[in-house]
């Protein structure tokens, strides 16, 4: 894992390592057999789309999948999201989504934030790509709202 400091070089290294790896090998893409809720969110600007399915058990996310069709950032963000929210309750998951949004807008740089989320700090310099990093989190929030 690269240096966890928030220097531009470190952010760039983290971005390349995490985003590109998750883009090429996205996790948790398979549809869930027992989904409690699902949501599909589309970015009307670029056509990227993410479908998120969640299975809730005892008020917590027992399983989650994200299938993204879009740019590397949208695909990687969906993959990272599925790794981070398992075991969380809806409120915790939404709170983590807020962190993801603030990271991608350059508003959160706390080293305590999971490196997989901080990797998306790189898009803070690319306003047109920020929503790519939050599309899966939006879909998760929408699915949780329906559950």
């Amino acid at each position, binding site marked *: 894992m690269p240096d966890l400091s928030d220097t531009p070089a470190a952010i760039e290294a983290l971005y390349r390592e995490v985003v590109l790896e998750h883009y090429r090998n996205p996790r948790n*893409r398979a549809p869930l057999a027992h989904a409690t809720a699902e949501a*599909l969110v*589309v*970015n*009307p600007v*670029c*056509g*990227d*789309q*993410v*479908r998120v399915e969640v299975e809730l058990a005892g008020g917590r996310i027992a399983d989650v999948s994200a*299938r*993204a*069709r*879009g*740019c590397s950032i949208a*695909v990687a963000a969906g993959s990272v999201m599925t790794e981070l929210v398992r075991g969380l309750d809806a409120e915790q998951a939404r709170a983590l989504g807020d962190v993801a949004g603030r990271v991608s807008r350059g508003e959160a740089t706390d080293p305590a934030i999971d490196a997989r989320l901080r990797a998306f700090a790189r898009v803070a310099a690319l306003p047109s790509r920020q929503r790519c990093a939050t599309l899966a989190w939006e879909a998760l929030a929408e699915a949780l709202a329906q559950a």
Partner: protein
Amino acid sequence: MGSASASEFVRVLDSRLRAGEPVVTATVVRIEGSASAKPGAKAIIDAQGRLVWGWVGGGCAESAVRDAAREVLAERRPRLIRLDLDDEVLGVGMPCGGYMEIYLEAMTHDPKLLVLGHGRIAETLGMLGSALGFHVTVNDALATAEAFPSANVRVTEDPDYAKVECDADTYVVIATQHKSDYEALQRVLRQRPAYVGLVASRKRSALVLERLHEDGVPLELLRRVAAPAGLDLGAETPQEIALSITAEIVQLWRGGSTSGQPLMSVKGVRITDAGVEVPEGALESAKCPT
């Protein structure tokens, strides 16, 4: 063929084509002597050579028509067959004492064009595909009716290409502007469509093809991909690129054995210092009355 049988002919034909089953129609166009079927008699033969409707003569005439129908369907070119009903040995082995000409024509459902993606190239592909008689499906979140007014089907919610279906009559163009093009190819190639074109630069094409190869996609499948898609027309604008891809699809649809060279060159017409040169005999059948 009376009106009742005409409507039955149309009904059977329509039903087969709607089911996606190509057939051949056979029509007796000329007889001499004592042929059993009369001019206008029709039959419908399926891809296995089975008579599914009608009658154009029995016995060996029927089996000759069935054999020819299978070939017509494979070649997708109409054919006029001549049956000698007089010579038991060299004809169709059925000495009725006559002669028949039967016109055979393949009837296939519309070829299918599947466009994955949006933007001007995708939009123009949809428009050209419709104009050429393709059944056009566009699969993209931004496949609106405004962008693709002539498309037969628009699929807007399919993040993992789960709704992508193609067969040996489907021509697929991946115009996702590089997004998820690897996943699109993975999904499409397994279904072995007639054509897979990837709209991409040379560099992107190589990257995607190499990754597919590394991930175990057989070379036999990779060879089916046209990447970058299209014929070399010197296209620059999105619309021109779409035209070059459509030209590549038409070339394949019409047999795939053509050169893609200018017709003037292919037909041997030349303008030289001595005048117009044409292949010997070319003008004989084309003289206009003066």
